[in-house]
């Protein structure tokens, strides 16, 4: 019991403030959450360090040509491993996937937010999310058995109609049109449509209604409102969503492995030719029979694709977060 010095009377004991910012339990609570949050950085750092250490033998031997060269000969006396065609193939497949997926995703988002009545919109949202939950091995299985034959006939039609454009040109007139970047692009598109759709849908549905109503009041038609109001105000968010999809497409492994002929004869942009590349699929394809030197080469390939997707995803989440200010606390 504390005693007041002047008067000598007893003071009632001070009530202890339980929820002070320095309360011991809270200190530990926030420390624990901060440690787990910082684990995200630790994880990224660990991945980079471990891959880099294992990739170093190849990276130091090949230098910059690891990224630009086009020879893969790991078991020679002086192993040469250069990833160029696979890296370019990943980019080609990724971009074809994004080109195919974007119109579908924006359409689906527009339909869900602006055209469908509420209950139907909810069902459509569920369907899109379900598409996102499909495992890639299942998509790959479907791709090789069901979708490929259909896509081959689409490829034939585009070749006959548009063969004079270099992109759709095929050297061999009797080409089978199978296992091409075109088909891989479609498969990737199926996997990234839900990603782009969910970002776009959220941005559409949070859009300021006053803008749209104002445009309608000024005599805007459905099309002009879409073209001049909705798209410009949401474009940065949509681009963020597209980049998220691109990041996913660049890292796609199993599904592409089934539907693409991996080749080190580089295929720049002839999307209908039966050869292409994808770094992640190449790693998986070679892994089973890899010698020690090739093991390091594959690690280096993994490091390259990790850094590329990490950069794309960082930019994407930065843009998406900026475009969704209502998500900040």
């Amino acid at each position, binding site marked *: 019991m504390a005693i007041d010095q002047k008067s000598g009377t007893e003071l009632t004991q001070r009530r202890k403030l339980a*929820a002070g910012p320095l*309360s011991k339990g809270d200190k530990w609570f926030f420390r624990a959450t901060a440690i787990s949050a910082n684990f995200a950085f630790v994880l990224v750092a660990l991945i980079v360090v471990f891959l880099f250490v294992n990739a170093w033998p190849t990276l130091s031997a090949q230098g910059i040509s690891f990224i630009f060269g086009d020879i893969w000969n790991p078991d020679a006396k002086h192993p040469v491993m250069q990833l160029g065609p696979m890296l370019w193939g990943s980019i080609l497949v990724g971009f074809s996937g994004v080109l195919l997926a974007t119109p579908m995703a924006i359409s689906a988002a527009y339909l869900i937010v602006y055209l469908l009545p509420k209950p139907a919109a909810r069902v459509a949202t569920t369907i899109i999310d379900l598409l996102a939950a*499909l495992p890639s091995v299942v998509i790959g299985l479907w791709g090789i058995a*069901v979708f490929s034959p259909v896509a081959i006939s689409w490829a034939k039609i585009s070749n006959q109609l548009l063969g004079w454009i270099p992109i759709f040109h095929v050297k061999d007139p009797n080409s089978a049109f199978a296992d091409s970047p075109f088909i891989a692009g479609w498969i990737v598109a*199926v996997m990234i449509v839900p990603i782009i759709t969910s970002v776009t849908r959220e941005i559409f549905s949070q859009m300021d209604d006053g803008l749209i109503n104002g445009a309608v009041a000024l005599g805007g038609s459905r099309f002009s409102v879409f073209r001049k109001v909705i798209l410009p105000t949401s474009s940065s968010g949509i681009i963020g969503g597209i980049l998220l999809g691109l990041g996913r497409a660049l890292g796609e492994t199993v599904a592409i492995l089934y539907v693409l002929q991996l080749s080190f004869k580089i295929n720049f942009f002839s999307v209908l030719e039966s050869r292409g590349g994808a770094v992640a699929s190449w790693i998986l394809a070679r892994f089973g029979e890899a010698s020690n030197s090739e093991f390091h080469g594959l690690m280096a390939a993994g490091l390259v694709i990790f850094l590329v997707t990490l950069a794309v995803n960082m930019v994407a989440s930065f843009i998406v977060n900026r475009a969704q200010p209502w998500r900040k606390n």
Partner: protein
Amino acid sequence: MNRKPWAQSSATFKVQLALVSTIPVAIGALFVILGGFDFSIGLIGVFLPIQVIVVGVFGWLKAKKRGLGDALLIFFTTFFSTLVLVLLLSVLGSVIFEGFKALSPHFIYENNRYVGTTTSLEYGGVGHAILGTILIVLLTTVAAVPLGIAMAVYLTQSQSKMRGVVRTVTQSLAGLPSVVAGLFILAVMQFTHLERSGLTGALALFPLMLPTVARVAEESLRLVPADLRMAALALGAPNYKAFFQVILPAAKSGIVTALLLGLARIVGETAPLILTTNMNNTTNLNPFSGPMASLPTYVYNFLGSSYSSSQQRAWGAALVLLIFVGILFGTARILGRKKSLKTSKKAK
């Protein structure tokens, strides 16, 4: 933009609309069925141009240039969305149709001992792979869920300035290529001399599950009204008690949703498991040693062989995998629906 299109559509307009949307389909179907055209040619060469012209003319007649733009906008968004729907239904339909042929009671519980690539479907099954998948995924969950929730707590409850950076890094981890996760654990195994087992597979899935759990848990924690937390703090509760006794119970269903969506994310991951586990044809219940089968690697292995019975096994396992995903996803949906109903009622 017409904000209430149903309010003014007269009966004649409805009939016209129905005609406009059915006639091109009918013409396309006629060409395919009677004309013997290939389906894709019928779709791209006959149906699409006719539909675009018909819709365009209809819109033009209704409201000149404005009508043309609106009609084409509605047609193309509907067309592309239908394409997405058809693709999804095609995936689901083919897996269910083909997988059902392989499915039988013993396919679910038997393992693949004595089964080769040509063994008929009367023998063997995916029992060992189901158990393997469950064990591996459980191990991952035990590590990833508490950590993911702690991250979500950091992102919603603390006042740190690092939150934005943490959120961006976590989100970009969500895009980690699955094969890189496998390579990472392989590199770790080089240093620690871990053997390939269920445990290494679970470790490889961990970086894939963590960001999903963190993101969904963060969103569900954010849905809890801030007043609840403030009231608890005002009553003198320390932050950790406010979290465990007030916020966590309020966000319970959201946290379970985070768990389920995290599970759905990793249950079908193939590449990391191929890199870090060995295939096994017999049942192995010890995730810390020995080869361990799992559903995705089972599909991958049997699809590699060209024999029809192996292909059937792959389809069957894919169907089982899809059922797993469906159950997880469906439960998460139902819980999520309940949660949003509750919060919306509260808001009113």
